[in-house]
């Protein structure tokens, strides 16, 4: 039989294991191979594929009887030549076929998993169709050998294909995660800068300011006391809007106080055609909400209640706790909300502030039944530590 010693077998096994490791290592780094040394892409890829295929097929050589057969009959160099030759063929045909399937746009449109399965299938079929004729030349009419070769080729090609697909999957997953993160980041930046800018600017509608000043101009002559009251209220509101602390948050208490100041101004302007009622759960006083959250909503209620009808208007502002949060309700007795609402500038700014400070943790409802109201749900409680 064979004239090899046990050491020679061990050496062979280690060489093969080494080849397998090198082959797998090169395969996982396939895209980076020879990027420095070989310029033309097609050539570079083919050379890389050749090295990988050579290593991997060499690793499995002892499993096929071909290795021993040629070694016995023609010696080591012929064996090497044979190995090189088949690797070249495998590279040229199997690799390029697989590459075609992998890169072709029409196949790329397939779902990822089908695409990878197709690539593996291509590798297996192409590998088989090369290995089988060669085996047939070496061992004509030996069904056993053919069967073995077929099995080992499928195994080899399948394994290579799987490593490739796995690698692709990991790369895709990594890219997807990276992209998602990047997208989220850029979206946040965009939203943050925009909303922040809007949250910091134009908190009191200038139109409102000029109208209030016009009223003061009259009151200063006709009703000094009212004029004084309104000037002070306007000063408070303006001071609050300048926001010295530069914070986007305010406590519920501050917000409610400022809303009341605003309502007082409106009440003076419209000579008691306005009534309002506040019902605020005092346990919520020290929790933080976006600065100028409430005022635009109340301004909206005044506009749609009082101003649209000119009648005596009643505005109710309620705040109560809910599970893991709180809800503001702003009601007015004006006409119903229209079927399709386009939130105006003020209400939109409320959305902006909540998007910035309570993203995905709020809801705004507009309802007409059983009563007309806007409800703002905030599902997060932030306590203001400085005032406690």
């Amino acid at each position: 039989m064979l004239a090899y010693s046990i050491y020679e077998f061990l050496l062979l096994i280690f060489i093969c294991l080494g080849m397998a490791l090198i082959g797998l290592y090169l395969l996982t780094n396939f895209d980076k191979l020879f990027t420095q040394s070989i310029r033309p892409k097609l050539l570079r890829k083919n050379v890389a594929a050749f090295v990988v295929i050579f290593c991997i097929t060499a690793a499995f050589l002892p499993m096929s009887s071909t290795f021993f057969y040629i070694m016995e009959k023609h010696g080591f160099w012929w064996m090497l030549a044979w190995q090189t030759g088949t690797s070249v063929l495998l590279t040229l045909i199997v690799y390029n076929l697989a590459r075609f399937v992998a890169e072709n746009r029409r196949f790329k449109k397939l779902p990822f998993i089908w695409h990878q399965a197709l690539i593996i299938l291509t590798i297996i079929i192409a590998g088989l169709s090369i290995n089988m004729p060669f085996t047939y030349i070496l061992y004509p009419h030996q069904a056993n050998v053919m069967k073995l070769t077929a099995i080992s080729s499928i195994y080899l090609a399948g394994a290579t294909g799987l490593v490739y697909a796995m690698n692709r999957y990991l790369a895709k997953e990594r890219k997807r995660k990276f992209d998602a993160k990047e997208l989220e980041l850029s979206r946040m930046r965009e939203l943050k800068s925009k909303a922040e800018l809007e949250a910091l600017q134009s908190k009191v509608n200038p139109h409102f300011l000029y109208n209030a000043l016009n009223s003061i101009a009259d009151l200063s002559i006709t009703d000094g006391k009212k004029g004084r009251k309104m000037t002070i209220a306007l000063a408070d509101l303006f001071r609050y809007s300048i926001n010295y602390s530069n914070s986007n948050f305010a406590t519920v208490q501050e917000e409610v106080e400022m809303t009341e100041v605003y309502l007082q101004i409106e009440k003076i302007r419209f000579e008691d055609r306005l009534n309002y009622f506040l019902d605020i759960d005092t346990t919520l006083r020290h929790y933080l909400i976006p600065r100028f959250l409430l005022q635009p909503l109340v301004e909206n209620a005044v506009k749609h209640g009082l101003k649209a009808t000119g009648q005596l208007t009643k505005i109710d502002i309620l705040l109560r706790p809910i599970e893991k949060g709180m809800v503001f309700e702003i009601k007015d007795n004006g006409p119903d909300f229209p079927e399709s609402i386009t939130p105006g500038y003020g209400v939109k700014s409320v959305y902006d502030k909540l998007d910035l400070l309570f993203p995905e943790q709020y809801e705004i409802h507009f309802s007409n039944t059983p009563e007309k109201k806007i409800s703002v749900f905030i599902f997060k409680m932030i306590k203001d530590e400085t005032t406690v």
Partner: protein
Amino acid sequence: MKQQFNALLIDDEPAARRLLKSLLHSFQNTITIIGEAGSGKEAISKINTLQPDVIFLDIQMPDMTGFEVLEQLQHQPNIIFTTAYEQFAMKAFESFSIDYLLKPIKEQRLEQSIEKLKTFGVLNNQIDTSGIREFIEQLQTAKKATALPIRSGDRINLVRFETISFLEARDKYVSIHTIDGKKMLTDQSLAALEEKLPDEFYRIQKSYIINKDRIKEMHRHFNSRYLFTMDDKDQTKITSGRTYHDQIKTEFGL
């Protein structure tokens, strides 16, 4: 020449009317106040019945704007607008050469308007109301529309235009896909939504509208279609409709 003008004061704020009245007191020889109105509706009926020579008209009233009032008049008086509008809108008045008083009203400015009325006997009573209204509406919509309101029950979500990747019509619903891969349903039709969306949104197929600012790649596809890859989380791919081929070609300058 001594002339007497009958005036009607129109403003939703009582204090504003009072102020104007006391300011006009110094022009008693020229202006006689014959009435006041606190809303657009009241103004229309009073102008038509009292037939004043001049009206002081507030532009922003709750039930309608001053321009809407003008469009419904049978009697055509001289008009002096009063407004608390911001700077940008004043440009509009000036370019349409309309007499206006800024709130809080200054005596000197009021005097100028009345002098003008005295000298010419008439003010700009041929106002291109639809023109100026369009002008102002344009200014306002440019400022306003940045998001699409989407209703689900009582809840209204605002979907900002820049976060929308594309809209897809399916059966009775339209789903709005955002760039972070979220999906919202609305029962508004794609055609109705198309009207509400700004110019960046472009229809590339019977059931698809895409955000042009969110196109990552576009390729020529077979059968005179185009393949768009969107710059969203899922890198969505959408093929255009065959009948849209020519429009897309011109739209994207291909």
